[in-house]
């Protein structure tokens, strides 16, 4: 049996973490972080198959997490999908090291297919 893929969800809003979980297909393992520091700790500990990252995070901002993931030898190839309520353009976010981008409010179906595409790649 194939190993279940792990997704690290970083968002300070419990309701949105639950929404993201509920949007996904069955068969994923989830880890959740409510701030940037915890996100980095969990990423190093778990080496997840992908990261879903809200840019507005307490203690360590999403952009900083993005930069640290890209700089980490072990984690630099982990695909990152960014969720943001800010007005960053797609180009800005992709240039900062993200692999894909959805903005709030997002469509659960769009999120699901984006995640599937990134995890499969």
């Amino acid at each position: 049996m194939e190993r279940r893929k792990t997704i690290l969800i970083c968002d300070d809003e419990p309701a949105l973490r639950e929404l993201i979980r509920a949007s996904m297909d069955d068969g994923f393992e989830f880890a959740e972080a409510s701030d940037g520091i915890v996100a980095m700790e969990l990423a190093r500990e778990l080496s997840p198959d992908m990261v879903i990252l809200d840019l507005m995070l307490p203690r360590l901002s999403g952009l900083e997490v993005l930069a640290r993931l890209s700089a980490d030898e072990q984690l630099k190839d982990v695909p990152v999908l960014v969720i943001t309520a800010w007005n960053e353009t797609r180009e800005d976010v992709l240039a900062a090291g993200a692999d894909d981008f959805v903005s709030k409010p997002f469509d659960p179906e769009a999120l699901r297919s984006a995640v599937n595409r990134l995890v499969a790649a």
Partner: protein
Amino acid sequence: MSRSNGRTVSLRDRMLLASIVLAAIVVGVFVATILAVSAARNATKQEARSKNLSVAALRLEKLVLDVENGVRGFALTSDRRFLAPYTDAKAALPDQRKLFRSLATDQPLQATRAKTLDFDIGIYIETFADPVVQFSNRRAAELAYDSEGRRQAASIRNQFAQFIQAENELSRSRERAADSKSRHAIELGVVGLTGSAILILLFAIYLARGIARPVTEAAAGAGQVAAGDLSFRLSQTGPGEVGEFTKSFNEMAERLESTRNELEDQNAQLRESERLKSDLVNTVSHELRTPLSGVMGFTKLLLTREFDPETRRHYLGIVDAQARRLSNLLDDFLDVRRIEEGRFERAQELVDMATLLREEAQLYSQQSPKHEVAVEIDHAPLAVLGNPDRLRQVIGNLISNAIKYSPQGGVVEVSADGGNESVRVEVRDEGMGIPLSQQPQIFTKFFRGDAPASGITGTGLGLAVSRDIVESHGGRIGFTSAEGQGTTFFVELPGANGVKDRQGHDEDQS
């Protein structure tokens, strides 16, 4: 100096006065010099007159001697040829005597002497010389001459000697007077001219110092002010209008400077307000989109997928909570509009703050498992008059802030005390505290301090709205805080009795 004492001589009057004094001094010097010159001229004239008189006296004496010589020669020889000097002198005598008399009038003693002399000459000619010449007898003539003629001639010569000596003395003294008066005139002229020149120079210096220099400085100052140096000030030392001018100039610069400073302050405030608004746009964007994502996302899931009833119910609960969060946000923004438009509804109901505090504490306690919300109320009820929803909003804001700004968790302590006169509520946390530099702005709309960088959500409206609500209830709100050592907010509201009094007073005024 200045207008207040009313005794300042105007610049025009000063210049007029100075010019008049200067002109008077110059005219006085000129007149004195002319008088001195004219006195010297008179003295010289008198001296010349004395000399003329002496000459006339000598000539007259010579004529008298000629008469005597002729008469004596004739008397000794009876030869008529010797009468030639007598005849010539006699012809010239009347004119010379007249001239002598006319010249000797200005000095009384000499005039008397001249009159006596002239009289004696007349007597000598008439009573002696003329009769002797008539004698044909030589002996008779000789006798006549020897006795009387010799005596009279001698007397006349004596008188002439006396007269001429006196006149010479007079002439010498007049010469001395003329000399001294000329010297005096020259001295006066030199001193007067030098003095006038110095006075004119002083006047010019006064004009230059009193007017020209301040005006030059003012021109330079105006240039500096025009170039933007509004802190430039003139020294206020000019006389009259110049002093007024420098004073007005300084006042103008003062006003310009304060106006510029005000404008700069306003500009800074506007920039700050712009920055806050721009922050607000981002804040609203984030604060609205997050609950909206929850509402829309779960709704879409519930519509498109099948869930068991329990999960569906759970998700609907989340949708409900996020929708209410949206609604509260909307209320906050509307409250800001109400603050800005100055209208806040004041429902007047009896509210028990003790009950209200317990309910709010319990509500927030459930929402944050990391925090313990402890309530300590000494005695209940704590009645105030007001709008229960609004007061609940204030207490909710304070407890919610206490939780948000102590992200590590901990105890939030809610306490209340008071009676009929007033009620005091305190909400204490053990969180991050408020940096001293941010404390003055804490009640400013949209101000959020370090919250955005710390990832703490919010609109920056809660405290601004709370203060307005508390103040509209006649109370006050405040805090004590130290960075890293937590914050204590307090609210003081008039007790139910106090509010009644205040209401009555308000209605009297409206």
